[in-house]
Structures are given as structure tokens and as C-alpha cells.
């Protein structure tokens, strides 16, 4: 019998008996885990018409505070999947960050000085809401015929390779059953039981530090900015502290407590309150909404594909929360994998296309781990020398601008550019670097709406002041004319630079495959083959 492992913030998919529990059924895709990554993947596949089953051992979004910062790329993906509006409506938009050393402000940053994007740099939203909005979008998609099924209280207890599939053993309130998956995607979180069942390792660094989260509910008129203190001036705040606004008058407060602590004692309400009181000042009225202590690690699996089992999100890689790279990068894993699984299942691409999922998202994970490790080294210096340099940076930053960019309280999540990887084609245009092959398309305002909203139909051939050839296998064509479609000039600036015109081949996940000054059907066709992994051995 499966027991609930945690309390729910929202019950989203209560257990219901499935016909599969009476006879073994084979499914094209089974996803284990209904966290942000598993849900995004299911929605993406379902919208493409691909039947998909999600198994989760609980019945909804777990209570408690984890991710709060959702980055622009995640919002863009959510928009494409039909969940973006709810996230944007509920989330707190912010772009300003301030860094303090003691009581002195030493640095501030503005994350999106650049106009012309539909989505803001970040919104803050509690993770259970993000998951709820994905499930809401799944329910809407199901209503429109998307073949998605979510099964709550379905705990996966075993996997075995069988001919052409993976057999999955599942435990439910009505007892055990088995089903088969042509492709099994493990989105089962950092402790991934599937990773253990497959005997795969998860190596990396443990950081010896404890962080106390106190989410407090209060009506305060602090601005919606990210405030970060090194050596906070308030008593008991530890070595660093963070204050960040969430929806519903909830504020995330985070204290760095050090390694040798008594976790139970630190979570004592009176003790937490003493810390929060010292930070917020006397007479501020608040409720404690949630408290927990977390430690963290930076690590990844050696490979994200193990035959017919693919790993995505925290099961494949784990980073420190500084930089908000966990859920954000996991959602990008999901969107990378969704179109590749779809292409393989439709017979448009060989199975080896899935190796490019491993290649691209491993590169992304390495970039995220590098960034979050660097932030963590700055926040929690490990040696006397690193502490001396850290403090030197902070001491200089108040007076001298040069030291401010060296302050690292988390470099916030940006998507990885797949430079030089197997599916990335040539840059025959030599246009703006930000939209080079491998990069996710940058948004731009059009005369009506935004560019990214027009790049949602699979492989798209985008022409800007250029003729588009007929190329078999291209799903969508978008011909833009800067005289008509580019009222702000940003489309030209971001996609043409000095070129008179350009043709871009864009993947279903909105990454650029290749670009040319003008279109030649044969070249576009070859780039399409490359992006679908059809020319790897040519």
C-alpha cells in the first residue's frame, strides 16, 4: 500500500483505479514523477498528440517552500504550453536586486534593462502554484483531446528491460500492477528511486552549510526586489540572509546558519521568530507560513540516457538554489526531450536523436553546476584565503565600481546555448551573436504580438526580408517583412544586424538550428536532417 510521503498544498490528481491494473498495457511514454519537470514534459508531449502517462506517488503538489524564482525562459516555455498567463498573473514580477554588506548597500542590479520581451526576467511564485498551473493547463489540454493521463498514488517500485520496452512495477492503494513503456522518463527528483533501481551513480560536491527558510506572511511595504546581505547586521542572521517577495503577502527569508548546528533546535518556533524579529524590526506583525532547513549539493549523472530510460530535472542533476537553476533548467530538459521523443515515436528521427538530449542537457547541467558552484564558493568560502578574498571584494565594492561585478550572490538562470554540439548547424549569416545557431530565439515585438508566440508549430522556417523556399519536412513557415512587422526595429537588431535579410531554421523548442543570408532549399533540408539526427553517420 502506498502511503502519502508528504502533505499536499493542492490535491491535483487523486487516486483512481485504471484499467491498466487488470492487464499489462504498453504505452509509448511513461513519466515517473509529477513535479514541475514531469508535468511540463507530459503537457508538451500531449499537446503534440503523443499519448503519455504520468505516475506520481502522491496526489498533488507537495506543501512547503522550494522553488520561488521562475526565469524568463521558463515563462516563455509555459506560454508555449498554455500555462504562462496564470503564472504571470499570480507571480510577483521583479528585476531589481540589491546586495548589502552589513548595513551598507554595495551593489544593485537590474536584470532586464532591455525592452521588447513579452516575459519579464523573473517572476516569484511558490512551486506548488507553478505545478498547479501546469496541471490546470493539462486539464484544459485533455479537454481538447490531448492524450495525457496522470495517476496519483502510483509509486514506481521496480523497472526491468523487456523486448522493445521497459517494464514498470507500480504500487497503488489497490495493490501492485505493472505496465510497459517504450520510453520511460525519470522525473522523480533528486533522490530518484529510478536512478538507484538502474544502479546509476550521482557524483558531485556536497556543500557543508545549512540554510534556514522562513516564509512569513505580512503586509509590509518593502519593494518586490531581491535583497541579499553578506554578514547581515541583524542578530542571529548567520553569515548571509535573503529577503524576497512571493505572492499573497508571503516573503521568503533565508538565513545561512553554518554546518555544525542542531537542526531540531534551530527549527524551534521561538528561535526562528527571534531571528525574523531581529531582521524585520520590532513591532512588525507576521505569521510563519513555512520553515525548513536545507543543505545542498551540486552533482549530475554521468549520462542522462540509459537505453530506454531517460532522466530529466533533479533526478539527472542537482544544483544549489543560488541562481534558481533547478526547476528552471529542468523545465528546459523537458522541452528539449519532448520534441525529440515525439520525432522518434513518429518515425521522423532515429532513436539516436535521444543521445542529443543527453549531449545538450548535460552541457546545460555543467554550465548550471559551474555557475551555482561559483556562487556557493563566494557565499560560503571554504578556506581562509577564499574568505579573505571574498571579504576584500565586499570591502572594495562599496566605494569602487570595479569590484561590484565580482560579488556573486547567485547568477540567475539563463538558458544554455548549444554551441558546437551535434545538432547545431552553421552560421552562414554571421548575424547577431545572441541569436546564433544553438541559441534559443530571443523574443521581439511584432506589429501584432510577439515573435515567440509565432514560433510554436514545430520546425519553423523563419524568413525576415527574405523569400522562403519549399522544403519538405518543415512544419511551419513564417515570413516577416521589417517594413510591416517590425515597428520597434528590435526584430532587425536581434535577427539581422547589418544583413539585408535572413532565413532561420528553428527547432520545436525555439532553438536556432542554422541561419543564412538567403534560403537555399538544399541547405535548409540538410540542416533539418542534422537537427533530427538523420545525418549523424552521413
Amino acid at each position, binding site marked *: 500500500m502506498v502511503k502519502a510521503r508528504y502533505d499536499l498544498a493542492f490535491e491535483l490528481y487523486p487516486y483512481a483505479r485504471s484499467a491498466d491494473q487488470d492487464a499489462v498495457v504498453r504505452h509509448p511514454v511513461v513519466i515517473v514523477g509529477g513535479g514541475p519537470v514531469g508535468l511540463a514534459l507530459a503537457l508538451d508531449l500531449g499537446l503534440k498528440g503523443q499519448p503519455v502517462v504520468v505516475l506520481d506517488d502522491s496526489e498533488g503538489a507537495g506543501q512547503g517552500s522550494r522553488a520561488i524564482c521562475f526565469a524568463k525562459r521558463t515563462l516563455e516555455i509555459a506560454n508555449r504550453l498554455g500555462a504562462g498567463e496564470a503564472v504571470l498573473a499570480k507571480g510577483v514580477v521583479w528585476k531589481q536586486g540589491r546586495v548589502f554588506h552589513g548595513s551598507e548597500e554595495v551593489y544593485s542590479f537590474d536584470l532586464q534593462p532591455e525592452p521588447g520581451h513579452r516575459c519579464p526576467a523573473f517572476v516569484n511564485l511558490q512551486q506548488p502554484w507553478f505545478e498547479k498551473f501546469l496541471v490546470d493547463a493539462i486539464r484544459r489540454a485533455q479537454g481538447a483531446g490531448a492524450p495525457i493521463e496522470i495517476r496519483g498514488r502510483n509509486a514506481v517500485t521496480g523497472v526491468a528491460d523487456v523486448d522493445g520496452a521497459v517494464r514498470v512495477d507500480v504500487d497503488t492503494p489497490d495493490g501492485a500492477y505493472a505496465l510497459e513503456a517504450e520510453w520511460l522518463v525519470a522525473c522523480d527528483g533528486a533522490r530518484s528511486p529510478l536512478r538507484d533501481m538502474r544502479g546509476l551513480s550521482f557524483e558531485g560536491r556536497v556543500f557543508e552549510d545549512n540554510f534556514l527558510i522562513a516564509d512569513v506572511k505580512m503586509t509590509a511595504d518593502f519593494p518586490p526586489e531581491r535583497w541579499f546581505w553578506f554578514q547581515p547586521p541583524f542578530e542571529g542572521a548567520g553569515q548571509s540572509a535573503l529577503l524576497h517577495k512571493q505572492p499573497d503577502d508571503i516573503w521568503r527569508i533565508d538565513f545561512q546558519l553554518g554546518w555544525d548546528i542542531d537542526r531540531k533546535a534551530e527549527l524551534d518556533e521561538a528561535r526562528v521568530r527571534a531571528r525574523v524579529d531581529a531582521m524585520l524590526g520590532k513591532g512588525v506583525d507576521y505569521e510563519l507560513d513555512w520553515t525548513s532547513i536545507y543543505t545542498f549539493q551540486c552533482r549530475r549523472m554521468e549520462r542522462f540516457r540509459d537505453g530506454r530510460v531517460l532522466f530529466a530535472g533533479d533526478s539527472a542533476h542537482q544544483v544549489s538554489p543560488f541562481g534558481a537553476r533547478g526547476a528552471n533548467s529542468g523545465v528546459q530538459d523537458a522541452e528539449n526531450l519532448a520534441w525529440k521523443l515525439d520525432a522518434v515515436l513518429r518515425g521522423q528521427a532515429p532513436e539516436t536523436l535521444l543521445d542529443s538530449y543527453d549531449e545538450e542537457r548535460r552541457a546545460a547541467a555543467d554550465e548550471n553546476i559551474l555557475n551555482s558552484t561559483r556562487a556557493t564558493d563566494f557565499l560560503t568560502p571554504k578556506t581562509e584565503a577564499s574568505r579573505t*578574498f571574498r571579504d576584500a571584494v565586499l570591502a*572594495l565594492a562599496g566605494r*569602487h565600481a*570595479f569590484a561590484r561585478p565580482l560579488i556573486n550572490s547567485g547568477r540567475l538562470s539563463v538558458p544554455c546555448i548549444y554551441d558546437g554540439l551535434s545538432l547545431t548547424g552553421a552560421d552562414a549569416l554571421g548575424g547577431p551573436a545572441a541569436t546564433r545557431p544553438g541559441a534559443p530565439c530571443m523574443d521581439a515585438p511584432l506589429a501584432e504580438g510577439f515573435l515567440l508566440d509565432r514560433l510554436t508549430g514545430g520546425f519553423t522556417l523563419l524568413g525576415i526580408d527574405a523569400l522562403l523556399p519549399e522544403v519538405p519536412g518543415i512544419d511551419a513557415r513564417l515570413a516577416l517583412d521589417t517594413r510591416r512587422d517590425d515597428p520597434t526595429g528590435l526584430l532587425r537588431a536581434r535577427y539581422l544586424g547589418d544583413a539585408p535579410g535572413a532565413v532561420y531554421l528553428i527547432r520545436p523548442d525555439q532553438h536556432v538550428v542554422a541561419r543564412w543570408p538567403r534560403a537555399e532549399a538544399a541547405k535548409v533540408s540538410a540542416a533539418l536532417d542534422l537537427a533530427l539526427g538523420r545525418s549523424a553517420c552521413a
Partner: protein
Amino acid sequence: MRLILDPNIPDPDGFYDELLAAHAGLSDAESAALNARLVLVLANHVGDRAVLREAFSAAQASGATPAVDPSA
């Protein structure tokens, strides 16, 4: 640009004096902190990452025991 390793400081004795004077009366920890700030200020002035990398190697190699030739 390459890292300058030939004499480049006018009035070497005077410079050395100023360097020590900056540390006068400081504890070991305060001196270490001052040195760290100094490294950062000077590194920013140089700016060129290749030159800075050469400087790291030059400083590291000279820290080895004199009898050992680091290139051997």
C-alpha cells in the same frame, strides 16, 4: 600584451618602502586582507585575462623551493 617581468618600477627602494609602510602596524589577518584588496585593485587595472594568467603562473612557480626547476 605580455606580462612584464623585467624591471619596470622606477625607484625600486622607494616603492618597497611604500609597500611596507602600507602594512605597518597591521596584524597578520589585516595584512592578508590588505594584500587581497591590493591584488584585486591591481588585477582590475591589468584587466587582460591572459596577462593575469601569466602572472598567476609566475607567482606560483616562484613559490616552489628554489632547488627545483618547475619546468623539469
